[in-house]
């Protein structure tokens, strides 16, 4: 027998739906109790997330390792047969090395730009079930982090601090569909607005339709007042394709972010604006092709022997 429902059941559903609509209204009107609830939850969850991060470190990239298994199957099989114990030790060492490399790289970028930064470790990635791109870092207001601060990695812009809690902070990645940043093209200084698209590529919309952009152009952050939310000069990405469709109001281009958001381990939050705008000094150098050595061989015919009479 199918369920027909009764008045009590219908009343319950109506009460629940009205409650949820009431909550949405309260939140959109900025009632602080709702923010406090989220803040309190995050503060309570941070130690558990840190413990989870520690426990799952060896397995974190398991899925990506599996996808590469086919290509390097022979090599992996050979390594497995050599020494399993040594492999585990090496794996732990690799994780530490990778984090150290990322830390060095981000400090190098921050030093070159004159940014005062706070380093932080990524402890969690936001679920994609909500169609957002976020990460949680293990430093918060107790370390001096506040909302609307720029977050960078060794390659460039990562995102912006959306919410800062006591011992953690939520970072909105530049790939998030809701992310917008004022960008300028290095050298030509054309300006535009870059928006995230949910993947590693973003879309740049130039403000002036008389200017042009070309593939390979590097993009930098324009910067905001007092460096919040964005400090100037942070490398963002490189133009990979340009939409030159006739009749378009403004020119648009697809941009590939320098930062690889799926491998973030250590990031830095820019605490203070640099004394002077670093301008184009942080644009990453383009890879130079390695010259191939050429060898010229001169061959001269040897004199043919004179036949003896």
């Amino acid at each position, binding site marked *: 027998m*199918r*369920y027909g429902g009764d008045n*009590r*059941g219908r009343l*319950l*559903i109506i009460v*629940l*739906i009205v*409650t*949820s*609509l*009431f*909550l*949405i*209204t*309260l*939140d*959109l009107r900025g009632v602080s109790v*709702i923010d406090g*609830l*989220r803040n309190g*939850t*995050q503060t309570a*969850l941070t130690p*558990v*997330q840190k*413990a*989870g*991060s520690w*426990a*799952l470190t060896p*397995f*974190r*990239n398991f*899925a*990506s390792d599996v996808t590469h298994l086919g290509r390097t199957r022979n090599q992996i099989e050979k390594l497995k047969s050599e020494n399993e114990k040594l492999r585990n030790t090496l794996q732990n060492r690799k994780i530490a090395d990778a984090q150290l490399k990322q830390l060095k790289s981000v400090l190098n970028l921050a030093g070159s730009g004159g940014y005062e930064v706070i380093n932080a470790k990524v*402890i*969690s*990635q*936001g*679920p*994609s*079930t*909500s*169609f*957002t791109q*976020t990460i*949680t870092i293990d430093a918060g207001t107790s370390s001096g982090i506040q909302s609307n601060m720029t977050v960078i990695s060794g390659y460039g812009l990562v995102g912006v601090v959306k*919410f800062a809690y006591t011992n*953690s902070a*939520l970072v909105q990645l530049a790939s*998030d*569909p*809701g992310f917008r940043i004022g960008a300028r093209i290095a050298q030509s200084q054309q300006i535009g607005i870059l*928006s*995230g*698209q*949910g*993947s590693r590529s973003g879309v740049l919309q130039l403000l002036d339709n008389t200017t042009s952009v070309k593939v390979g152009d590097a993009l930098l952050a324009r910067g905001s007042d007092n460096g919040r939310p964005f400090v100037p000069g942070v490398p963002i990405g490189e133009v990979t394709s340009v939409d030159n469709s006739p009749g378009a109001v403004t020119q648009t281009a697809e941009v590939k972010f320098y930062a690889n958001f*799926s491998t973030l381990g250590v990031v830095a939050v820019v605490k203070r604006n640099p004394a002077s705008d670093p301008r184009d000094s942080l644009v990453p150098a383009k890879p130079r092709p390695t010259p191939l050595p050429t060898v010229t061989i001169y061959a001269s015919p040897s004199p043919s022997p004179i036949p003896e009479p």
Partner: protein
Amino acid sequence: MTIRRYLFSIPIFLVIYILQEAFITQLRLPLGGFSLLLIFTLIWATLSTPEIGALTGFGAGILMDISQSSPGPMGHWTLVLILAGYAVAFLGYGDDNIRSNPINIVLITTAGVVVSQLVFLLLGLLLGQALGSISHVLFLLAGSAFWTAIVSPLVLKIVSFIHANVFGTRSLI
């Protein structure tokens, strides 16, 4: 009596929520991964009456809304999950052909997860949230369906066991 039993399920959902936030989100799975809380909630609702399904959706929605990574306003996931919980419970209620067949429950849960996310997305659009590229959204929805279809059969027995102990043994699969 039913409400008292519903209250017993709150700590269970809290544990699932902590598992989701502290461990599942750490695993960088391809295709966007999955939400254990969403899967658990919909399986739980499938095994319940429509009223309990809606109440379960309400509780789980509140938990998903207080998650720091939730993009929408408080109540966004709550509204979606009340409707989803009620709907999946309504589909299965009184029909033993659906409830006693694990394949049907997995199918209902997988479809429920995808439709919930779609409704969440559409509601977000109405509330002024950015959508991003359509291809990426479709990719995530497909990934979510894939992972739900993988994970649901694995947790179905556990959810069924816990549900049977909370609400009585009739729902045990």
